């Protein structure tokens, strides 16, 4: 009995504060928003959340290394454009080429950030701009339609057993992220880089290689999201989902990942993604006017991060700033280091 109380207490201490927000959101919307809890809407939310989930997984990888990737929206747009332009080679090779383009963007980010130590914000701001230009040039700014095909639509509309394909992909993404964070050396190096880069270097770890791999891994997650999105809009769009990278950053922050690196859990990412998607869906179902939606989303983002600060998880002032009084070599929230 005491054991159960104990673990419950530990769960309460461990659970990201955003979990409570999510519970309140879901409860409130179930009561007030018509059709929110219907099976069809749940599947809609799931499929929309899946894209954000995969991108947020990528964002989480670079955020724990004290990084940031703004270029993700441009990368998925490039993937959609490349895929549709190369569709004559067959659907799988076309998607593979699109994914390759995303990985190339990730490799450029990784190279510049790891090898030349250009700040991640600046690097990915550059690739965000350049890659958007590139995908626009490839199609002269006009969206290109993919020929109708069941296989092309599968990643967004298909299903595996009872689950729809995007949800399966997102679940796989979460499992991969969990394994990377908890079971692999590279994952631990990422956390160490994020919490104390000097210590990581002093320990003789190959920090550069790990940083490079973080951006390429992030790109791999983004490519999976791009697969769903491209299939979803069934076309190559230079302006596919312009706010995607920022939504992912918000989701990670809401889920309790520290933007100063070294701290974060997969459960947090899941909760953050759900908060963002559920609130957007709820506002739509409540038929709130579109500008009020923007206001509510903004307030919600800041409020939930503030909530995280208020419940004892101290926020930090800014990216890259170690907080006073914290010993950098250990990470809180039970992340064990090698």
């Amino acid at each position: 009995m005491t054991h159960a109380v104990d673990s419950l207490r530990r769960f309460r201490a461990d659970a990201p504060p955003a979990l409570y927000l999510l519970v309140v959101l879901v409860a409130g919307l179930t009561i007030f928003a018509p059709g929110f809890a219907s099976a069809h809407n749940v599947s809609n939310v799931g499929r929309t959340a899946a894209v954000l989930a995969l991108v947020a997984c990528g964002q989480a990888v670079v955020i724990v290394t004290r990084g940031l990737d703004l270029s993700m929206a441009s990368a998925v747009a490039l993937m959609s454009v490349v895929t549709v332009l190369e569709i004559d080679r067959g659907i799988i090779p076309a998607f593979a080429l699109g994914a390759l383009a995303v990985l190339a963007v990730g490799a450029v980010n990784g190279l510049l950030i790891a090898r030349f130590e250009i700040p991640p914000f600046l690097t990915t701001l550059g690739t965000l701009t350049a890659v958007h230009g590139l995908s626009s040039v490839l199609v002269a700014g006009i969206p290109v339609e993919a020929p109708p095909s069941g296989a092309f639509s599968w990643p967004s509309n298909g299903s595996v057993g009872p689950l729809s394909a995007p949800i399966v992909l997102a679940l796989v993404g979460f499992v991969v992220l969990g394994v990377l964070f908890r079971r692999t050396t590279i994952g631990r190096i990422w956390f160490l880089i994020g919490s104390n880069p000097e210590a990581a270097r002093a320990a003789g770890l190959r920090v550069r290689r790990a940083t490079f791999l973080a951006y390429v891994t992030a790109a791999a997650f983004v490519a999976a999201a791009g697969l769903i999105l491209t299939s979803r809009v069934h076309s190559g769009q230079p302006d596919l989902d312009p706010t995607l990278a920022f939504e992912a950053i918000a989701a990670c922050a809401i889920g309790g990942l520290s933007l100063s690196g070294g701290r974060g859990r997969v459960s947090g990412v899941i909760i953050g993604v759900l908060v963002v998607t559920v609130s957007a869906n709820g506002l739509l179902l409540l038929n709130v006017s579109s500008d009020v939606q923007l206001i509510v989303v903004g307030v919600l983002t800041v409020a939930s991060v503030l909530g995280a600060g208020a419940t004892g998880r101290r926020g930090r002032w800014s990216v890259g700033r170690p907080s006073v009084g914290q010993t950098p070599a250990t990470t809180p929230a039970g992340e064990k280091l090698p």
Partner: protein
Amino acid sequence: MRRLIAQLSLQGIGGGLVAPLCLVVSITVFSFLSAEELQVSNLKGLLGQMAPLAIIALGQLIVIITRGFDISVGSVAALAAVISVMCVNALGPIGFAMAPIVGLGCGLVNGVLIGRFRVQPVIATLGMLSVARGLVLAISGNQAVALEGDNPLSQLGYGSLAGIPISFLVTAALAIAVTVMLSRTRAGRRIHMLGSNPPGAELVGVSPARTLLFAYALTGLLAGIAALVLVGRAGAGLPTEGQGLELSTIAAAVIGGANLAGGVGKPVFVLIGALFIQSLNNGLTLAGISSFTQEIILGAVILGAGLADRAVRWITTSQRSRRGTDGAFPMDGGSCGGRPGPRRRWLRWQRHERRH
């Protein structure tokens, strides 16, 4: 040559060396593309056009020095522009005062969130970006709000004094004010200290909450002033104006030598950074290059600025023995002009702490 560069950078110019370099390169390139680029009159045009970008980039510089940035500036400028035009239509020219007030208000909110509640700048200003944009769309009813009657600010948008665009005079005056604030006042010193060594700054009694509040409030205020220039040019408040401005102003500041790791940056170079971005747009447009290709080039330039900054630092630090850096990271000088970099200073401070 190395010594010369090192000398320059010892005087604190190192980071800013990139911007003039870029400008010279771009003007040389454009002189092959079109003769117009080098004409004095066109330069005047550029100086006038760059005002909104340059003014906000100055604000961006202030928060970048504190290791932050502000991605809400574009939305805030739109909100300030629309509210001020509505007030002018209702109350007369006194309503223009609302633009800086709205800007300042938004900046204060950012500052409280970031300084007092320690929300990361990217989240706090992302929230403000969304809220300000939603507000401006809601109060304007998704419509542009035109000034009724003549535009009292058209001189600010288009006029010139003794051949110099008035908007540039305003920009220059603001740049001087920011320079004085950063280098001659206590507040400026606090901003620098906080950016180059946050724990150290706190130890010597700099309040991060107040300093950050001040920095973000100023950035908001400058966004509000830039809104006046936008109204001067457009004669209307546009609820959709300013999208993308947040990123191009950060780019201008960084091309102008501001370092996102904090502690470094000079307003005059930021003006040059802004002029460079404006001349890039202008020159490439006149050369008939599509806006898409312009984006590719701008992206490449941002990356190039990062690389060039790195190269300048590397050259200057290789003058000195690179002691203290481990073998795996020969390039991690992390320092500018021989001063230990923020991270190294932080470490040094930590070591110091542990000893006691």
